[in-house]
């Protein structure tokens, strides 16, 4: 990874802000659930914060992302506003999707967050289409398809990579490999050790990176983004990471390897980056504490606003099914 670009101090701090927002937000979601104030299936991205944070510092608002049910980190890193996100989590009329999407279908086109899907693997064909649109527009926009290791085995993965490579589309296929597909380990679902080698099958670069390392993740993502913007086509990135909760919050993850789990938690990427910022003199303890307190305040305000917001009117059932309501 030595020949990849490295983030400068300001960029590292930006990555930390995004990662901290994701971590604190995730902790608050789980707290609200445990307090019985939020009822939803929730797929925690805790442990995977660095991946989208280090990627999205090289993206613009009008670059596209498609993500999946475990995608809160991707959305916050891309700029999803907290208030309308929380309103949507709570199923309120003020949510980004008027309470009709929920956490598995959050959408916010203003920041390029085009599709969140609950179907494993389905982010890829649509992100490929967005890449096609971006190419036709000729505006050097890129399209990111987020997915997990489990999705690397569905047919849509292969169809999408092949089409994007064939048409030289500005798409980045970002496999966030947390080594578990729901309850199934990578070893139990495939014989290969790295999904990135599949890039070669379709004629695109494939690279495996430590997704929890902000330097590596930033560098590999930046190169892929620049390649896409230059019209050179797609890249498959396999970002290695670990999820800190079960597949679904509420299940204990007994199927996970205990040693690997303990080891991963011992190298929690967000506090590691925090310490590095202090050690390298990029930010003081006080400055970081202020950032964290500010995020906490913003989350609290978003939760309070969501709780106070009305539920959608039942007339919404018929609205948005079609462009014009049909009796």
């Amino acid at each position, binding site marked *: 990874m030595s020949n990849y670009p490295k983030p400068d101090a300001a960029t590292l701090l930006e990555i930390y802000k995004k990662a901290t927002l994701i971590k604190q937000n995730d902790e608050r979601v789980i707290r609200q659930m445990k307090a019985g104030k939020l009822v939803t299936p929730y797929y925690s991205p805790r442990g995977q914060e660095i991946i989208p944070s280090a990627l999205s510092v090289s993206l613009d608002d009008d670059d*596209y992302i*498609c993500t999946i049910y475990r995608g809160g980190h991707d959305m916050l890193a891309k700029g999803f506003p907290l208030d309308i996100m929380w309103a949507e989590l709570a199923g309120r009329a003020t*949510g*980004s*999707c*008027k*309470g*009709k*999407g929920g956490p598995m*279908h959050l*959408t*916010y*086109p203003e920041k390029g967050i*085009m*599709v969140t*899907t609950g*179907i494993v693997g*389905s982010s*890829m*064909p*649509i*992100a*490929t*289409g*967005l*890449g*096609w*649109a*971006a190419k*036709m*527009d000729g505006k050097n926009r890129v*399209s990111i398809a987020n997915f997990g290791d489990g999705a690397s085995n569905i*047919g*849509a993965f292969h*169809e*999408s990579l*092949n*089409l994007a490579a*064939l*048409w030289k589309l500005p798409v980045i296929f970002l496999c966030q490999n947390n080594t578990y597909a729901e309850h199934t380990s990578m070893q139990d679902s495939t014989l290969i050790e790295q999904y990135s080698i599949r890039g070669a099958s379709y004629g695109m670069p494939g690279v495996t990176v430590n997704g929890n390392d902000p330097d590596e993740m930033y560098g590999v993502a930046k190169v892929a983004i620049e390649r896409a913007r230059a019209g050179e086509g797609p890249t498959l990135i396999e970002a290695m990471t670990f999820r800190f909760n079960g597949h679904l919050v509420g299940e204990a993850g007994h199927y996970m390897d205990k040693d690997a789990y303990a080891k991963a938690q011992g190298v929690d990427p967000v506090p590691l980056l925090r310490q590095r910022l202090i050690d390298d003199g990029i930010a003081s303890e006080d400055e970081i504490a202020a950032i964290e307190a500010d995020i906490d305040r913003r989350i609290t305000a978003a939760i309070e606003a969501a709780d106070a917001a009305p539920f959608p009117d039942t007339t919404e059932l018929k*609205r*948005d*099914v*079609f*462009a014009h309501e*049909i009796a």
Partner: protein
Amino acid sequence: MTDTDVQNANADANVVAKKMTLIEAINLALADAMEADPKVVALGEEVADKQEGGVMGVTKGLSTRFGDDRVRSTPISEQAIIGAAIGASIGGYRPVAEIMLMNFVTVAMDMITNHAAKLRFMSGGQTNVPIVIRTMTGSGFSTGGQHSDYLEAWFAHTPGIKVVAPSNPDDAYGLMRSAIEDDDPVLFIEHLPSYWTPGPVSRQHVPIGKARVAREGNDVTLIGHSRAIGDGLAAAAILEKEGLSVEVIDLRTISPWDRETVIASVRKTGRALIVHEAVRQFGIGAEIAATIQEDLWGVLKAPVKRLGGAFSPVPFSKPLETAFVPSQDDIVATIRHLAAAG
């Protein structure tokens, strides 16, 4: 109509073609739509001229005229085709995606029913998916169980996607223009055995959701779409000689279907028969029959009847394949029976 005639027709938007096949009508509609709106693009297996403009030549000439960027042949990858269409549509384009044969939609069902049909609703109206999915089907070519199914009921049962099935070249042209301009995803079902049947084309848009009274009558209403209309009109001509007056309603759009036109007709005749090639069980005839009976209980002179395909996969052997589809004789006999009742 020759290629030159089609080109001449293309040159003058006001021309009314006297005779055009369904293939030529759809081709003309695609060409006119692409001419009218640079955001209209086409993709699918073999749709470009390098691959001869589609397996039946429906998209012939389009890539030569509009360029390979706007008319793109794809690998055999149905999920990627529909996914690319969805992505391009939420990125501001109006893609027309071809799924060669209707049975192949099974490979792309996730993209169609979970994504194309739902993204508008699930996003609270922030995104819409203005795509057209063109596909062809119909028994009669001894293609067996995996190349002949009518699957319109699956999609009519799915909120968020419109389903269109023209029975003649004029409607095919007009419905295609409307489908491409529609902000919702539209499944456009082309009847393969009718591809070469010629008819006039007026180059007018046909509104989605509006049925057509193909023939007026007073004794029995026949309701259908696609291939059922040709058979229904032929049956009506036979029955006329017996003094029976049959009204034929061509649904044209299956979802949303035109209840007003259907109910008004059955209110007048008091008798209804629904005909479709898709298997009868759980077919769209059940929905239409139930609605008629709910709305017109007390007005009906006889129970609503349905004719549909046998509850079997479409068979290969010719006599079996012929027996699978409701025949013109079946239609005639059922209408006689209906007229005799009450």
